[in-house]
């Protein structure tokens, strides 16, 4: 066996893990690693313009595929800049490995140049982290990092490597697999509990299925679709779970929650048996847990993470396990037994749901001279035939994208649901674009969010990423403005943005194509132009939209799901 430096070991481990892209930014503490990177061409490095974007892009790559995203940053500010990206991935359980440089072992604790306690700073927002103080532990630690990141409930893992460790030499040995006595994620669900769940589902008069990001992460969309169709029950997917069940299917009730549909929220509230899968009863989904719990119903909860079960809402049938495994078992039990759901009760339940649906809560009024943001998303859906990967930032545009773009497949909708990080949209699109060079990649954003990572237009140029940026520009921090209008007496404190850049010229300055659209009739032609004439270019379309448009329906914070504010038109 040949001796290798720590830096060479790092790169070799990435190769062993079949990592294609590393997003990063060089600096003093990682120079040895960058030198090792230079001497090979298997792992490609994507030079971002800010470390936050490196982690977001790695995270976006992971969300759009089933791979672990990898970021590489230097010590001190490199690591602290990465923290927002790490926390974002943590809140949505995304498998990411972040390798950070650290000052040499001898310097640790001496307030050395670009020193910070990376392991300490990131501890509360990682699944796990390591400080590797010895080159002999390096390969095994990286193996553990990838294993932990992508098993059980996935999440980010930080590996902090002092500079001297990357220079030291040792023999390279990479284990095929790994066993940890302190970490053994459960896969198979408890059969007795699954039987109980199936029994409850078959007895239900008003059943409802509610699924979250866990179904996407576990690649359980196919099993879910089979189960839902088999049972004929209504289903809702959360913001993180969109695409797990085809949105164009009649059994799909739309998204639940704060900006969910009337039919999804009322079905959640009035069902007698709720099957929750890979979801966590988040405050933005069920509103006030006291209101949610006040309705008598049986809840079945399938999740890989026991701590998600009965955390906010007490559950009747907990099932800890990997989603596809549990759903396969449910399907098997349904096939084995002769029992079918109560058809008569189900028909009556659907009748009730259809009456809620008839309210058409997503209806909005188009204006003659002003572009409605919802209209842009509807046209985007048409022009891309629903086949794009859509990333978003955070705010009103995110909700409109989730409401009006119908996702029929998993891993097509990429957004920061948990942490709600503005600025993720463009780097997410970069990660997705590298992973899926043949798919249209769209970033739906607003003039507030896009400016939080605007520097990445430069990265997108360097690596020729043909992202289509849909900027819903209403000159307001729209979601803040909406809350101020509704709950703060229309006192628009610091939510109006003055002195915006000319986004068309800004895009051009970075070497991209910029288009401004100010009239409704120009929306569709501009989109067509972007997706056909400029298929291979990054196109920044600045849509000047209605300033007063609000996201409806809305459940105010702290209210129950049935307490919805509908659009003025209803």
């Amino acid at each position, binding site marked *: 066996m040949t001796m290798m430096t720590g830096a060479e070991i790092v790169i070799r481990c990435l190769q062993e893990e079949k990592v294609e892209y590393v997003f990063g930014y060089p600096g003093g503490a990682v120079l040895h690693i960058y030198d090792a990177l230079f001497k090979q061409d298997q792992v490609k490095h994507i030079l971002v313009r800010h470390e936050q974007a490196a982690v977001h892009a790695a995270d976006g790559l992971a969300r759009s595929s089933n791979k672990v995203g990898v970021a590489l940053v230097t010590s001190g500010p490199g690591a602290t800049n990465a923290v927002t990206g790490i926390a974002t991935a943590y809140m949505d359980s995304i498998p990411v490995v972040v390798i950070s440089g650290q000052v040499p072992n001898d310097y640790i604790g001496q307030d050395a140049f670009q020193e910070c306690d990376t*392991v*300490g700073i990131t*501890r*509360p927002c990682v*699944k*796990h982290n390591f*400080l590797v103080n010895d080159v002999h532990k390096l390969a095994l630690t990286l193996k553990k990092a990838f294993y*932990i990141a992508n098993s059980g409930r996935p999440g980010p893992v930080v590996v902090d490597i002092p500079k001297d460790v990357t220079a030291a030499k040792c023999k390279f040995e990479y284990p095929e697999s790994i066993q*940890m*006595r*302190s*970490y053994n994620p459960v896969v198979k669900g408890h059969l007795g509990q699954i039987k109980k769940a199936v029994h409850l589902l078959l007895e239900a008069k008003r059943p409802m299925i509610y699924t979250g990001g866990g179904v996407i992460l576990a690649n359980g969309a196919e099993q879910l679709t089979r189960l839902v169709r088999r049972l004929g029950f209504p289903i809702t997917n959360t913001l993180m779970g969109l695409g797990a069940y085809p949105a164009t299917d009649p059994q799909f009730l739309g998204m639940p929650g704060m900006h969910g549909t009337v039919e999804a929220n009322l079905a959640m509230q009035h069902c007698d048996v709720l099957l929750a899968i890979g979801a966590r009863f988040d405050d933005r989904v069920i509103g006030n847990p006291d209101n949610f719990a006040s309705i008598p119903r049986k809840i079945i909860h399938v999740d890989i*993470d*026991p*701590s998600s079960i*009965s*955390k906010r809402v*007490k559950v009747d049938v907990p099932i800890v396990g990997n989603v596809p495994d549990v759903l396969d078992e449910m399907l098997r039990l349904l096939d084995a037994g002769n029992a079918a759901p109560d058809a008569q009760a189900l028909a009556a339940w659907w009748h009730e749901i259809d009456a809620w649906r008839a309210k058409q809560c997503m209806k909005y009024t188009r204006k003659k001279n002003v572009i409605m943001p919802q209209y842009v998303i509807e046209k985007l859906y048409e022009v891309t035939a629903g086949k794009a990967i859509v990333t978003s930032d955070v705010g009103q545009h995110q909700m409109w994208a989730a409401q009006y773009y119908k996702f029929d497949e998993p891993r097509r909708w990429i957004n920061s649901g948990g942490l709600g990080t503005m600025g993720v949209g463009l780097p997410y699109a970069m990660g997705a674009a590298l992973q899926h060079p043949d798919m249209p990649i769209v970033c739906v954003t607003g003039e507030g969010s896009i400016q939080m990572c605007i520097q990445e237009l430069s990265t997108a140029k360097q690596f020729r990423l043909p992202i289509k940026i849909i900027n819903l520009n209403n000159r307001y921090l729209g979601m803040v403005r909406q809350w101020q209008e509704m709950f703060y007496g229309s006192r628009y404190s610091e939510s109006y943005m003055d002195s915006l850049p000319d986004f068309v010229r800004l895009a051009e300055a970075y070497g991209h194509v910029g288009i401004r659209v100010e009239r409704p009739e120009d929306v569709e032609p501009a989109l067509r132009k972007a997706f056909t004439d400029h298929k291979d270019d990054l196109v920044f379309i600045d849509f000047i939209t209605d300033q007063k448009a609000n996201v409806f329906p809305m459940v105010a914070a702290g209210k129950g799901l049935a307490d919805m504010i509908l659009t003025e038109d209803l």
Partner: protein
Amino acid sequence: MRHIISILLENEAGALSRVAGLFSARAYNIETLTVAPTEDVSLSRLTIVTTGTDAVIEQITKQLNKLIDVIKVVDLSEAAHIERELMLIKVRATGKDREELKRLADIFRGHIIDVTESTYVIELTASGAKLDSFIQAIDAGLILETVRTGVCGIGRGERILKV
């Protein structure tokens, strides 16, 4: 409700701060915390005394189990167990107090382990509640310093926490 939670965890740098950080991040309460290596030096045994409703304690044990360095978690107070805490208490011991303090230490099965003309250090091992009673039994004006280790505990009989 007061609970004594025993944890077996990897004896790794930072493992303790993962546990302590979890409690502060999720606003759980720590009354006492003790930690030391076991007979197997790769393992640490950590004991936390906490209070909370059943739902909170359930979340605490689930969240602890989720930490990668944590191998096993047991709520000792769920069944028969023994708890002990060590206290060293320095008291002003002059005049007739010397005799009285000696008597009190004997009643509580404590030992006087340091004697000067004006002070005693009394060592006492008992349950947390018993240590509290001892402190209450002494004239507060005589107490110079109190050091307590925090509670450690073990299950009775065949109730064993091991890898």
